[in-house]
């Protein structure tokens, strides 16, 4: 069961990865389904892993096998490399992460990359600029006036197609 879970988890992550390069832009629906499946598989796998670790703890110190490590790297990579798509919203971050990508080649440094979710990374000096960018982008984008009686209640700030919960899914890895 956990072998299957691991396979599905890996499959889901690679599909999420390739989703970004699809023509027509990222499909929110497909991304959501993929991330849900990945999380379900991940949960099963981790539960099985924990049970197995608990059983084996006095035998051998736990060594993560190579496949899992590769998986972790892929899953850590995807939120970073997906951020270039959020160009309009956060102009600073894509530059940072792309540079990181080039500079950090060795596995240990990749593990140490701190970015897990959007909020964790936002540098203090940026927020003002981002807020302004959000409004401008929003106005530019919505040329056609959209009339609503409930004005602006449903958060139009972050209009990013990539902002579906892969980040949260990967956090626990």
């Amino acid at each position: 069961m956990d072998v299957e879970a691991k396979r599905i988890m890996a499959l889901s992550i690679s599909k999420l990865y390739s989703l970004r390069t699809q023509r027509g832009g990222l499909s929110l629906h497909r991304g959501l389904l993929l991330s849900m499946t990945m999380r379900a598989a991940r949960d099963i796998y981790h539960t099985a892993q924990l049970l197995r670790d608990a059983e084996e703890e006095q035998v051998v110190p736990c060594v993560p096998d190579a496949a899992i490590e590769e998986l972790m790297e892929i899953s850590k990579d995807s939120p970073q490399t997906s951020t270039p798509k959020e160009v309009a919203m956060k102009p600073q971050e894509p530059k940072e992460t792309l540079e990181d990508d080039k500079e950090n080649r060795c596995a240990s440094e990749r593990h140490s990359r701190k970015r897990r979710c959007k909020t964790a990374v936002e540098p203090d000096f940026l927020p003002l600029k981002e807020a302004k960018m959000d409004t401008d982008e929003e106005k530019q984008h919505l040329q056609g006036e959209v009339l609503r009686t409930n004005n602006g209640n449903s958060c139009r700030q972050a209009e990013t197609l990539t902002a579906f919960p892969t980040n949260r899914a990967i956090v626990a890895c």
Partner: protein
Amino acid sequence: MGAGGGGNDVQWCFSQVKGAIDDDVAEADIISTVEFNHSGELLATGDKGGRVVIFQQETENKSQPQCRSEYNVYSTFQSHEPEFDYLKSLEIEEKINKIRWLPQKNAAQFLLSTNDKTIKLWKISERDKRPEGYNLKEEDGRYRDAATITTLRVPVFRPMDLMVEASPRRVFVNGHTYHINSISVNSDNETYLSADDLRINLWHLEITDRSFNVVDIKPANMEELTEVITAAEFHPHQCNTFVYSSSKGTIRLCDMRASALCDKHSKLFEEPEDPSNRSFFSEIISSISDVKFSHNGRYMMTRDYLSVKIWDLNMENRPVETYQVHEYLRSKLCSLYENDCIFDKFECCWNGNDSVVMTGSYNNFFRMLDRSQRRDVTLEASRESCKARQVLKPRRVCAGGKRKKDEISVDSLDFNKKILHTAWHPQENIIAVATTNNLYIFQEKVN
């Protein structure tokens, strides 16, 4: 000829096939939507290349009653072109996601076609006469020398070869951030809705520079997103009512009289999940790919990956009927996830009198589900059964165990041959079935 009676008493026979014969399919030719107009005289298809092809039913040949009227090309035009959103560095596909016809009001025909971002209203009109004999101009358009004009003549209309013109009358832009999955014309013939993954907008057919947002399910924090809108449709008679389906297998019915913003539904249709069927892929297969009201407006039909469900609008806690489309795929979900087939969005349709429903499957199979007789049949759209008026033989899939003669085993099914789009003539037993790049037209066998 009746209004489309029982699917199993009816024998279906091949009528026509449209599209290229060779197996090497060009991506642009892949059919992405099929729709009859309200009279059934016109049949529109949209493809991945952004083109719309409209076929017209020829007026019946009275001398040959056996020979049912055929559909021939009436008009072809490029509806959408690929675009590039520079702000987001994203390409916008020209693929036509949906076509919806407007009811006919005058000599011209109108349809709405949409890609991921932009909806267009097209006017299709005929020209079979042209004015000839201008007083001041030659036939080729050049002005005559004024000195040579000594008499007065008035131009007269003379017949010409029929010309069908398609012109874009309205372009509805910038209404959607996410990908448009549905459009639906209201019964008031003045408004229509368009739905994307998170929002539904109400438009007036005459007004292109603004729309009214009626549903918005975007969460404050996108990381909390758990479901998206997958399809939406207006009620056929009640102009205040529409439904939308979700990726979680629920359908919400909204009444625009209740409030301007319909985030709160009037009815929620949801069937509790069968715990014995739980798997990694439960979420995916419960996602609804299509929702269609019955013509009488009392029922609605939903299609998810493995089944078709008929819901009574007065009963929210479960469907009144459930039909398995291809249950033999349940044990293959992992492979279907690997090859991405599990994400295929099948559509479904009703016949004219709501007694039979139809939906597609793999291997170019499609299913006719007879509600009144509680029977179903699997038919195939293939080049092998393309002889004129050849009756389609029912097909059977062997789920396991010993394969009988004439049965096909699940592992032999061709998952690249999928029928996602089908349409049923509103009055007659004529169906249009789209394979990857061919459109098959089948008709009821006339004795």
